[in-house]
């Protein structure tokens, strides 16, 4: 009886994870795409030599953006099974993609009014074994005199 209850509980978690998790992911992607369109005018580059020639600079400061994001229970199980066979774990690929894009967006949103973000770096770090990662993006926002 106890085992049966455990099994039902497990299946319920997987089902909730699948249905709600897919919705959450879809919504997040819609939000990301809309916000990316809004911040498109602010370029974030990984190099340092992209300043406009003879532009007058009023301010340069570091900007940051970070997010801790977690996968859902269904994808966690799928990734666990994948681990046995090896190969591509697409369940985690979308997780990291969402995290990176979110972190970059937050960084850009912290740099409103800037003209360019130089030397952008993205870092990620595992928070827990349960498919939780932190993504941190930083760079130097430069403001031109207008």
């Amino acid at each position, binding site marked *: 009886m106890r085992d049966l209850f455990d099994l039902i509980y497990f299946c319920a978690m997987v089902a909730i994870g699948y249905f709600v998790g897919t919705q959450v992911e879809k919504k997040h992607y819609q939000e990301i795409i809309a916000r990316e369109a809004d911040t498109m005018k602010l370029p974030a580059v990984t190099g340092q030599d992209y300043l406009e020639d003879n532009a007058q600079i009023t301010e340069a400061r570091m900007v940051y953006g970070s997010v801790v994001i977690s*996968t859902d229970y269904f994808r966690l199980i799928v990734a666990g099974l994948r681990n046995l066979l090896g190969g591509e774990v697409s369940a985690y690929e979308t997780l990291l993609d969402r995290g990176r894009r979110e972190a970059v967006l937050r960084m850009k949103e912290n740099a409103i009014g800037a003209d360019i973000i130089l030397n952008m770096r993205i870092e990620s770090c595992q928070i827990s074994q349960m498919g939780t990662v932190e993504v941190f993006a930083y760079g130097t926002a430069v403001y031109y005199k207008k």
Partner: protein
Amino acid sequence: MQKGGVMILTNIDSIPGKRILEHYGLVAGSTVRAKNAFVDLGASLKNIVGGELRSYTQLLEESRAQAVSRMIQQGEQLGANAILNVRFSTSNIAQGASELYVYGTAVKVE
């Protein structure tokens, strides 16, 4: 993230629009943080459906701000007014505890 003072931070080799007068060498700040059990409980519920764990995002932001302010303090003691080439690094010390480390080069600009 940065509070108080007029310290300029960049993660590039220079401060655009300003000339460097003096170099003071490396300054660094770090903090080691453990997860909060209550925050963790909320996070494990959120783990079922996935998505952002806001409490963790906030926790890490605060910790990183503390590391940065320690670095700034060190720079101020040297008499610097800017820190160049700032880098961040994170490492897991033990299960549930991680270190946030930030370092850069303290300089004086005009």
